[in-house]
């Protein structure tokens, strides 16, 4: 357990619990991942998925290069399933909110640069891409939820301060974290607080590699568990102070191991794996939970991770990446 959490006991979720518990058995386990990693060819890797959730999409793929289609279909299935099972629809809204922020960023960029970027919109948000395009075309931002309206305003202001797109990105991301780390749903709120902390730590390491740690105050994501002032002070004081600061928190293992690997191999593979495993451990606190929406959220998180892992393995197999490199990156 990372941070103590009070989970919601809600008997309305009894049926959903049963469905999710049985579906959890079908998530790809460690031995399956091992078989996938050890597959000789991409075709062999796909064959390994024969009796999994993905088997239904395999006949539709004419070549392993089309794996992304399979992953999109599976994500659609999971979203559809959660839509049916989630008794409180607002929790589903929370799950989809990050994609709304992504679409919002894209639409803002399209508006500023007067370009058509509709192909970069994702259908997994709460607001369908067509609706989002219409809102931006008519400039009827009042049709957006209030937290997204704030993001539009801050994103535009941030861009015009320095005429830089990354400033818009950071401003909108900050709004997203402000919103997600203050949700009414404690399990998700704390999940996003952990994500904010880990993203901030990862950003410090990313900036440290390029010797640009002073930029951290521009890109800091609010809402995490780590106290902002102490975090920034430790970051300014150098990497030793920063590592010492982090060692007081549950992220110690992720950072120590990930940072030493980064220094040794000049690669973030292990850090990313450890970061994802940390979040998976957080989601797994629902394992012994009796019933409640958290179990559905946990399933969603695990499924998202599974899709990401599968993308890494299949892309690695297609491009003949060594097995040990793939293994280093897969969070299970």
């Amino acid at each position, binding site marked *: 357990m990372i941070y103590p959490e009070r989970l919601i006991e809600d008997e309305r979720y009894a049926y959903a619990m049963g469905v999710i518990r049985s579906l959890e058995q079908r998530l790809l386990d460690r031995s399956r991942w091992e078989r996938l990693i050890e597959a000789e060819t991409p075709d062999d890797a796909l064959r390994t998925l024969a009796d999994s959730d993905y088997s239904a999409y395999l006949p539709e793929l004419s070549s392993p290069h089309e794996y992304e289609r399979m992953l999109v279909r599976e994500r659609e299935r999971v979203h559809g399933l959660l839509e049916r099972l989630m008794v409180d629809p607002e929790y589903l809204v929370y799950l989809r909110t990050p994609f709304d922020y992504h679409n919002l960023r894209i639409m803002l960029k399209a508006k500023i640069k007067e370009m058509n970027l509709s192909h970069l919109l994702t259908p997994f948000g709460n607001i369908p891409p067509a609706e989002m395009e219409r809102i931006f075309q008519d400039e009827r931002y009042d049709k957006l939820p209030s937290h997204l309206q704030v993001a539009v305003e801050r994103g535009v202001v941030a861009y015009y301060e320095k005429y830089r797109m990354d400033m818009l990105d950071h401003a909108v991301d900050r709004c997203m974290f402000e919103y997600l780390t203050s949700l009414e749903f404690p399990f998700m709120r704390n999940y996003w607080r952990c994500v904010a902390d880990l993203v901030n730590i990862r950003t410090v390491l*990313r900036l440290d590699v390029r010797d640009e740690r002073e930029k951290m105050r521009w890109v800091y994501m609010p809402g995490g568990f780590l106290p902002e002032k102490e975090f920034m002070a430790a970051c300014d004081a150098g990497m030793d102070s920063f590592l010492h600061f982090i060692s007081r928190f549950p992220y110690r293992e992720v950072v120590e191991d990930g940072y030493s690997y980064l220094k040794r191999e000049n690669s973030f593979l292990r850090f990313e794996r450890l970061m994802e495993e940390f979040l998976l451990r957080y989601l797994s606190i629902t394992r012994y939970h009796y019933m409640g929406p958290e179990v559905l959220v946990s399933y969603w998180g695990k499924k998202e991770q599974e899709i990401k892992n599968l993308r890494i393995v299949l892309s690695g197999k297609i491009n003949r990446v060594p097995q040990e490199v793939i293994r280093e990156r897969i969070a299970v």
Partner: protein
Amino acid sequence: MVLPVSATRMELLNLKKRLALARRGHKLLKEKQDELMRVIQELLKKVRTLRREVEREFTQAIQRFLFARASMEDFAVEDALLFPACSFTIDFRKKMVMNVRIPVFEKHFEGELVTYSFYWTSPELDLALERLEKMVERLVELAEYEKALQLLADEMEKTRRRVNALEYILIPNLEDTVKYIQMKLSEMERGNITRLMRIKDVIRKEG
């Protein structure tokens, strides 16, 4: 082969001058050829090493990019790289090496390389871009060396042809012609002497 020239003393003098010039030219061109060969050998070594390094770096950069792509959503990759803030320019000038104008590229990176969301992107993307940046610098260096090598090789080929033309055609021809004119002139000299002796005899008999 004897050149089609009239066998006169004036021509002989001209041919001797041309022969001396051709020998001097041949010597200079031979020296140029040797020096070109040395420069090319050095450049070839550099190009081989650099090419190997560029290929290795390119593979590593691509592998990193691959991992970054695999860790990110498709739309996030394109979004991240849609509006680059970094520009790359190449200034071009020429320098003379062995009378060959070879190009010199000056590379300039301006702006920041990593200008995208840190939440939606993988840190492997930063490393991939950093590697690609370094690799592009080396790639331009490689292009500079390879172009220089190509131009020097062309010059080498031209010089070799000139040296061979002088060594195997012009100089032997001139030598043959000089020899021919000298023989012809000696023959004419002998003819004149005989004619004079004959005239002298005739005059002596009549007198």
